[in-house]
């Protein structure tokens, strides 16, 4: 009865939010650590390494927020959530924020009452097939058996794609990424479909990644980003501007290598404002002046995080594509720090 808990939790948070817009930031500070919801394990985005330390692209967002608050990127407790439990965990206050490749949609924003603070990865739904199948386009998949995670936006996109192309298919509903992997590798389904980044990350964990191809068609828009609960705008601002600081840092050339140098003072006022040597942006957020310095220092700027976790030199090998800075023809764009 997870859902009834969900319901009760929604009701409780609804009341709590209405009665007193108690600060999530105060709670986090009092607790001494940030509770951050992540996936149960998707290499490159969020997965524990051999020592049990969580790492990945989504994890880095959590660490940056923790660094902005406490000056310590390790002051985070990571809470693994599945596609079904993630919203319950956030709505009930079990986690302070969710950084779990979650698609920003109208209903999740409006109907489920969440606040998406930005987009850290522009994704789209793709298809992966074994090379031996000899398929080169998703249009050739008529009659195929497709493994798909239930309770996701991909399920609806898939139905739309096959219907609009007048093709038939056999859906095999699956709970988690691990189960899908098992069925796909055993040949119980011809095709595995999910977000293209997820496909690349899943393929990277296969014994022979070269035996599988990701088809060129991307059939949907899946903007993924961190989200918080409705009702605490100050907290939403904090997470939003931490993400923006990482993005602006790349745009302005602030890296984890030169940040200490730049902090001594530059003649670019925006860099100075971000790093807290000019103005009082940190104070407005209720943080110390060096909040963004700590956030960027934690793992590097947006570009560095991308290259380190999912970039072309990692086993996952994703190119920047849409996720390049706007100046380089991508969609990554931060509002100004002013």
């Amino acid at each position, binding site marked *: 009865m997870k859902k009834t808990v969900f*319901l009760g939790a929604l009701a409780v948070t609804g009341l709590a939010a209405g009665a007193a817009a108690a600060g999530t930031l105060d709670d986090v500070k009092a607790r001494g650590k940030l509770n951050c919801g992540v996936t149960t394990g998707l290499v490159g985005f969020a997965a524990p390494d051999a020592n049990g330390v969580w790492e990945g692209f989504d994890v880095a967002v959590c660490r940056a927020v923790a660094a902005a608050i406490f000056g310590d990127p390790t002051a985070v407790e990571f809470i693994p959530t599945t596609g079904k439990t993630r919203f319950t965990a956030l709505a009930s206050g079990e986690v302070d924020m969710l950084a779990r490749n979650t698609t920003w949609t109208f209903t999740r924003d409006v109907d489920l009452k969440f606040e998406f603070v930005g987009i850290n990865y522009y994704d789209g739904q793709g298809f992966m097939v074994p090379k031996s199948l000899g398929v080169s386009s998703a249009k050739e998949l008529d009659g195929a058996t497709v493994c798909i995670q239930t309770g996701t936006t991909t399920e609806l996109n898939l*139905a739309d794609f096959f219907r609009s192309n007048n093709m038939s298919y056999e859906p095999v509903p699956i709970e988690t990424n691990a189960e899908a992997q098992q069925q796909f590798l055993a040949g119980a389904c011809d095709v595995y479909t999910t977000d293209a980044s997820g496909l690349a990350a899943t393929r990277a964990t296969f014994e022979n990644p070269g035996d599988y191809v990701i088809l060129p068609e991307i059939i949907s828009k899946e903007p993924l980003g961190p989200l918080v609960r409705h009702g605490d705008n100050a907290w939403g601002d904090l997470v939003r501007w931490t993400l923006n600081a990482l993005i602006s840092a790349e745009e302005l050339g602030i890296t984890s290598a030169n940040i200490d140098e730049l902090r001594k003072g530059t003649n670019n006022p925006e860099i100075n404002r971000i790093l807290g040597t000019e103005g009082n942006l940190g104070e407005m957020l209720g943080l110390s002046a060096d909040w963004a310095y700590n956030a960027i220092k934690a793992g590097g700027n947006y570009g560095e995080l991308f290259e380190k976790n999912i970039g072309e030199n990692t086993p996952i090998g994703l190119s920047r594509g849409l996720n390049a800075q706007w100046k380089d023809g991508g969609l990554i764009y931060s509002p100004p720090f002013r």
Partner: protein
Amino acid sequence: MTALTDPPKESFRLSMLIYDTRYRSMTIQVVALMGFMLLFAWIISNTLQNLSALGKPVDFGFLFEPAGYDINQRLIEYNSQSTHLRAAFVGLLNTLLVAALGCALATILGVIIGVLRLSKNWLVARLMTVYVEAFRNVPVLLWIVLVMAIMIETMPPPRDFRGDNPSASMLLGDSVAVTNRGVYIPEPLFSRGLGDISVFGAFDISLDLIAILIALFGGIYASKLVKRRADRIQEATGDRPTTWYIRLGLVVLPTLAVLIALGFHLGYPELKGFNFKGGIHMRNSLIALWLALSLYTAAFIAEAVRAGILAISKGQTEAAYALGLSRSQTMNLVILPQAARVIIPPLISQYLNLTKNSSLAIAVGYMDITGTLGGITMNQTGRELESILLLMAIYLSISLSISAVMNWYNKRVKLVER
């Protein structure tokens, strides 16, 4: 002289509700009931109030919106543009299908195992004990997942059937294909079919099926009449006329005639494109769920059967032997009919358990009512309360229907006492 007068009638006073033992218990009950109702009213109004504060008032309108998702196993026409209500109905039929298949197989297995567990053969009896203990002491969810894993990992994928020298081949003269996507078996086809009739414009029912069922049940009824006549003759004369060939013919021939008239033939599965086409596709999710639920429940039914048989006094067996009945005749004609009275009540609860356990279907991706209405529909529409309430109402009515049918059967086989 004394006049007998009635004692003055005590008039009713309010305090008697508490101090008079005649009324006190009633007072307490009424107060408790009112408190209980108040509690419920508070819970309901609190839920409704909070939901509307959230902007989610209780509303079943979502059932009539397009579902948007596809379902692999559908017993009635359905596509992603159908409504959530129809998706729920597809799921309900899938639940009923696996429940019916499961109850049938579990009963057959349970009776056989229960009888064998009492066997004089030491090895057979011990093996059945091991079966019963192994199956009923491990959670059914694990059995479901295990059967599914075996299906997926050990059966060949359809592509192994391809090529000049395939590594897998079809069974029974190329009519059955066992793959890791399920089992494909031949399907009945009619070259001179009667078509379908539409019921309320919502469902199509095959006229062929109706014709066959009429012929079959007509035959069974006629055979019953012959049996009754044989019974009468036996009671009157003591000799029972041999009727088995007449009865067999009455059941088989009309059905056969209808089948030939309809142009019955089998459609065989064939490998085309990615998958086998044609034939009936029994998905491995259905098979895993069906087998696991049946094997698990059979262990409990076997125990009920054993208890039923042990409840019949040994004198019955000895009397039957004394009359010259063989071992199997004794079991079938004397022991089991009497044991049925003891077996049926626990059997009802096992049927109910199996039906409710079928909601574990989501573990293997079988799209039952919990998977459609309580899974995807609920997740996509965010209508948790409505979906769960509907789901509870549906399971409640399925269970009550099963109970009603089984109780009726129980009444029929009950010992008639005079």
